[in-house]
């Protein structure tokens, strides 16, 4: 019997027993659905990281000097403890580093990236904002354009004036229908004068980038965000990727001499680039991908077992039919192929439905949650093949049992 004939027969069989077939392929459908959804979430996150994250969070052509890397794969206790014991960066580290930078470099000092602090104004109730203390060319490096007002001037940064630049959400909440410029915003019981509003920046992992409140590092904000006066990082931007490498080497030398490290000793600070951060994030995402696909894979195995079970029942139920077919000249391999194809068709059908549901699921996730999802074409191909393979594997035993039935015995059964 030719293959397409067997597929047609299988589809007929599936059509005749719609409900039973539906439950049979449910396991595979669910497995594939989650497989597609998980892979599209992970893929989406990876793509998002590459396209948005590097620019928004870290800046282009930049590196950041930190006491320890934000994104690192050193997860063992020892290295975490060693990193925690490291000397933090302080304000006195800034001038030597900045002086050594090649011409054309920009730099900025920042406290933590997203530190929540309560803020209040006379016009609205208390609410958390992302408070940050910065110094240097922070706005230029982050490419923050102002929609109103101005950024702080060098002398304000130097003096630590209590001036503040806020995001659009902050402006909207604390100063509803008002011009925020020149008004008072209290952060952690310290009063700041709003001097600028940053253009809408959108989201990063669902975190709004428009809830920022940025003040000079030397203003009270430095203490509000970082009570001990530690610097979270010094961001350096080079004019080109080559300039970044050059600047990194310079900064490394300055820091090593400041920390009095011998040549054999490793750095006790970190120079993090967007590329190195991305590499670390990709490593984590790959682990998520493996773990995320392992779970649906278990679903597929269970789905395969359901199919095997149902096929065994089908063989038992259709023993008489097998007898008839054998009496009419069906060879072992004809019967084997019939049941294998039926099992594979069922499973592939389940996979196709699962792919459709998985794609719909991914769309819903992308629509309803901040998680970006991208359906990877390879995952569709892989899921279809996987479905077929599961069906074939699950069908082997029932089909071989069917093919080995004795025609006389089979005919006798009703």
């Amino acid at each position, binding site marked *: *019997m*030719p293959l397409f*004939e067997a597929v047609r027969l299988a589809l007929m069989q599936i059509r*005749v027993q719609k409900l039973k077939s539906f439950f049979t392929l449910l396991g595979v459908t669910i497995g594939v659905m989650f497989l597609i959804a998980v892979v599209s979430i992970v893929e989406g996150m990876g793509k998002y990281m590459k396209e948005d994250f590097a620019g928004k969070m870290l800046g282009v052509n930049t590196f950041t000097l930190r006491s320890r890397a934000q994104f690192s794969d050193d997860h063992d206790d020892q290295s975490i403890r060693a990193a925690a014991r490291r000397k933090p960066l302080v304000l006195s580290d800034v001038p030597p580093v900045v002086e050594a930078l090649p011409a054309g470099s920009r730099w900025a000092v920042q406290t933590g990236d997203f530190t929540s602090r309560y803020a209040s104004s006379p016009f609205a109730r208390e609410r958390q904002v992302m408070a940050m203390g910065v110094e240097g060319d922070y706005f230029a490096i982050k490419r923050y354009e102002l929609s109103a007002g101005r950024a702080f001037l060098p002398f304000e940064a130097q003096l630590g004036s209590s001036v503040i630049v806020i995001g659009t959400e902050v402006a909207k909440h604390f100063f509803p229908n008002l011009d925020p410029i020149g008004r008072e915003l209290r952060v952690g019981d310290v009063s700041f004068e709003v001097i600028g509003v940053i253009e809408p920046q959108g989201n990063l992992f669902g975190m709004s980038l428009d809830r920022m409140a940025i003040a000079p590092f030397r203003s009270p904000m430095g203490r509000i965000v970082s009570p001990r006066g530690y610097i979270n990082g010094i961001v350096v931007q080079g004019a080109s990727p080559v300039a970044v490498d050059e600047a990194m080497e310079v900064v490394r030398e300055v820091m090593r001499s400041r920390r009095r490290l011998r040549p054999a000793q490793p750095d006790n600070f970190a120079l993090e680039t967007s590329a190195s951060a991305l590499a670390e994030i990709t490593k984590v995402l790959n682990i998520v991908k493996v773990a995320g696909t392992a779970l649906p894979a278990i679903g597929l195995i269970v789905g395969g077992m359901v199919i095997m079970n149902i096929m065994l029942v089908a063989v038992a139920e259709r023993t*008489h*039919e097998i*007898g*008839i*077919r*054998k*009496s*009419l*000249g*069906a*060879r*072992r*391999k*004809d019967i084997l192929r019939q049941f294998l194809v039926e099992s594979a068709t069922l499973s592939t059908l389940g996979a196709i439905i699962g792919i459709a549901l998985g794609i719909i699921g991914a769309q819903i996730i992308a629509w309803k949650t901040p998680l970006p999802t991208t359906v990877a074409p390879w995952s569709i191909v892989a899921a279809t093949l996987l479905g077929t393979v599961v069906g074939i594997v699950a069908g082997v035993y029932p089909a071989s049992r069917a093919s080995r039935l004795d*025609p*006389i015995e089979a*005919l006798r059964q*009703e």
Partner: protein
Amino acid sequence: MTQTEEAPISTTAERQVIVSSSGVAPDKDWVIVTRGLKREYDMGGEVIRALRGVDIAIRRNEYVAIMGPSGSGKSTLMNMIGCLDTPDGGEYWLNGLPVSSMNDDELARVRNKEIGFVFQTFNLLPRATALHNVELPLVYAGVPSDERKRRARESLERVQLGDRVDHRPNELSGGQRQRVAIARALVNNPSILLADEPTGNLDSSTSTEIMRVFEDLASAGQTVIMVTHEPDIAAHARRVVILRDGVVESDERKEHFAAKHGL
């Protein structure tokens, strides 16, 4: 020799020559030749000797009934002739082919090409249409779809079911079902039509109708072998073989058989 023109019968002498030349492939004219056919079953330690050396020779175009009480081995013989089972001893030649030494796949091929089965319980696929049921042997013969449909239709027309091709078995009467089964048996132009109690599940008027179909087929030159335990059904054949305790008890022309049974 006086015999009907449409259904020739081999003579006892001819048959004896064929049956006794052991190991020699019979002439093509002989569709079925068994020599000392044996079959034993192990039933929980007890060996049942279902066939103890059956010698039968059937020439092309014969219409033969095989009779016998239950336990005589006629079902075993039928399975053997139908290539559903292989003998433990002896020879079986079907259309000049040494069936007794064939493997499973070769037997399937022979069942497909050389034998048309008609069963007591019809054995149609319940969910398939009459046409598809009749197509089945052609599917396994690898005949392309268009030709398959055409030949299946022709075969159904031959048993006057040309207007029932799209009916499923449960939409057909018993007689019609058996005629679908006959159409299926004939669709691959088999060497023999092998019927196992073909009227066992039918009332007497339908039985007569089916017997008429067999009669017509036999007259048209189809070799027909029918296994039955009903003497009046057996009397429709030209020749009646009676089995008892796994051996051939008698093998005679219908006229002798009918006279004995007062038919």
